[in-house]
């Protein structure tokens, strides 16, 4: 059994998990600077500890309708390679030890429906956590395009 620390958060009605190793920190979210011409799922730029970071609105990225911003909204700052980006989530949940060997491949229909964003499903005490493909979400393909 390989237990790894994961940061979990909620977007819409689903819980998601990310390996803590990919997460730099969690920030509260007030507002982001809109970047005209950026993809519609880019909420904008925020300044995190002296660094300017683009934020992806996961609701928009997952095709969910926008909601009023609340004090629960959080930016999960992730690092992928040399890139640093924020993921705007509805709320951040707890940090959990997840057993990587128990991860299952998502049902094919879900995989297709989620455009490949969901890479695996973990079950902890009857709760489902979706593991997501961060490089894909922050548009790793943009780097080469």
């Amino acid at each position, binding site marked *: 059994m390989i237990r790894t620390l994961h940061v979990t958060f909620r977007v819409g009605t689903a819980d998601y998990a990310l390996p803590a190793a990919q997460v730099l920190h969690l920030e509260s979210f007030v507002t982001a600077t809109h*970047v*005209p*011409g950026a*993809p519609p799922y880019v909420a904008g730029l925020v300044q995190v500890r002296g660094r300017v970071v683009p934020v992806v609105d996961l609701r928009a990225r997952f095709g969910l309708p926008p909601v009023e911003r609340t004090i629960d909204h959080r930016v999960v700052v992730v690092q992928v390679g040399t890139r640093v980006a924020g993921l705007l989530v509805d709320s951040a949940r707890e940090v959990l030890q997840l057993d990587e060997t128990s991860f299952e491949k998502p049902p094919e229909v879900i995989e297709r429906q989620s455009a490949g964003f969901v890479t695996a499903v973990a079950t902890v005490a009857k709760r489902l956590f979706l593991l997501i493909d961060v490089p894909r979400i922050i548009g790793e393909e943009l780097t080469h395009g």
Partner: protein
Amino acid sequence: MSERVDLQEFIGAFAVEAEEIVAAANTSLLEIDVAIGQGTVRPRAVRDLFRALHTIKGLAGMIGVEPIVEIAHALETLVRAADGAGGVLDRRAVEVALQGIGAIAERVRAVAERETIDEAPEGLLEAIAEAAARGCAPIAMAPIPPEWHARLSPGERQQLALALQTSDPVWTLSFTPSETNASRGITIASVRARLGAVGEIVKVIPRAIAATAGGQTGVAFDLLIISNATQAVIAEIAATELDGVIAVVAPAAAPGRQITEVMDVTGVGAEPPAPIERDDLPAVGRAVVRVELSRLDELQDQLSLLIVSRFRLEREISSLAELGHDVRRIREVAQIQGRQLRDLRRAILRARMVPVSEVLEPLSLLVRSLARSSQRDVRLELDGCDAELDKAVADRLLPALIHLVRNAVDHAIEPPEHRVASGKPRVGTVRVSCLEVAGNFLEVIVTDDGRGIDRAAIALRAKRPIDDEATLLEVLTSPGFSTREVPTTTSGRGLGMDIVRRITVSDLGGKLSVTTHPGEGTAFTLRVPVTIAVMDVFSFQCGPQSFVVPAVVVEEIFEVLPEMLVVPPNAGTSTISPADRQASKWPRAALALIERRGHAIPIVSLGTLLAIDSGERARKALVIQRNGDRIAFTVDRMIGRQEVVVRAIDDPLVNVPGIAGATDLGDGRPTLVLDLNELGTIARQRGVS
């Protein structure tokens, strides 16, 4: 999913990683070659090279590409021999290694493109093995006194060994500071500086002596130097007796490449210190400290925070003043503080400057290796490159220069026989020259004496007429544009001319221009700011957002009223449809005309262009000019003019044309820095499309 698909995916990943490692290996080799040229060594580069080769061998082994494994293995053996010798590869070994890495690169590409993979080129493995057997020039050691021997680092021993190879004389001497000497201006600093000017100082060791009534200060310095200066000159510099300067390797008797003692390499454990390079020696009696760029960045980040909090302080003072408080005294202090901040900023910026030539080092090897692979005779000339540039700017600029030089060798310089036939010198010239220009800018000009750019061919390919050089540049730098018919091994992959433009214009806030003459050659001019950290900007409000633009690009700002605009036919609509917002692209922007100083200039609502506002509240217009063409942008209102710290935003998520970076105006939120030149081009394109 079948197994085949998985393997394919893995091959893709292999290709990406392998290409990176090949690039890293090439960089290390370039570094080693430059070091050979300077007569120094770079043990670290040799080790990096070894690591790269080792990794690629492992990767290739995993997917069973035997030819790559073989070549990498042979090169590994060669480099290991060099590493064992403290990091010395000779020119011929570098040459062979370059060929080997080239052969690996070709095979990586074949793997990526699912082509058949050729065996290692004939004779290559043998050539590598032969170079390895030659043993990378066993290192001779100067017969230095044993008390010195023990105190030298591996790098310093290397330095001595190289001096021995080049038959440079080696000396030891002592300098004793005293009041008499000090009164004549002779101190250890001046001795270091003056000896540095006539040779290389290998080591200086202080030693305690008895303080005397004669004014000796209780310390003496033993120096070990390499210098072609005469004994008398050295003695005079150090204010010492002639026989106090001892020739360890005498000028006449320098034993050349003879081996007197094989170098002791057992001490090579920790990272040896970088060898002293001539250029690094202080010019006039100043000590030199090597500092990592990241530390200077840190310093600068702290400074930017200070600048931001100063803005806030001024804001607070203003609001106190509005409430009727007497703020004269505090404002005075704030002004003094502002000046001090500016001085501090200048001091930090100075610390970050490096001579351009230092950054251009890799170019000469690049030209050599390109010339070989494309069978051209080419010479690289560097001119005026002792001008200084912020290290960060220089580092960013290098890829653009590499691309231009690569293009010049690959596409511009004709084959030697063609050159001779058209009455040109057989050897082509690529020149990189630097010119400091007013306003803290530096012009870096890449010139070739090749065939020039064929405008007709480009016009044909771009399907548009090319009347002037500005249009030519626009076409050349549009993403994906290439004139290359046959893919060559060296060009066409990776960077395009659009990247050169992006680096120069968007990343560095500079200008790119080109002049070309058929049959005579082409010159690209990159005008870049000497520093990027702080920029003088105008800030303004446009719709719901505030923005800034570099003050240098703005020609004038004027009041504009809707009735002043002349809307020509088919100018489109100035309202934004929700669909446009969604399309993540700017809508068609309406270009109108306005009369200004007797000229009709196009004017566009910035809010409409950026799809953030209807532009109805716009009351001000900013005019920019590029190559004589003016265009005006309307904005709601001006906020002010200030110096800001600009950060590049290069993440692909927000890599949008027209947006050059972000800054903090003091509210802790990023404010976008716009590239009005680029937006002008976009507006014109939208206007006619």
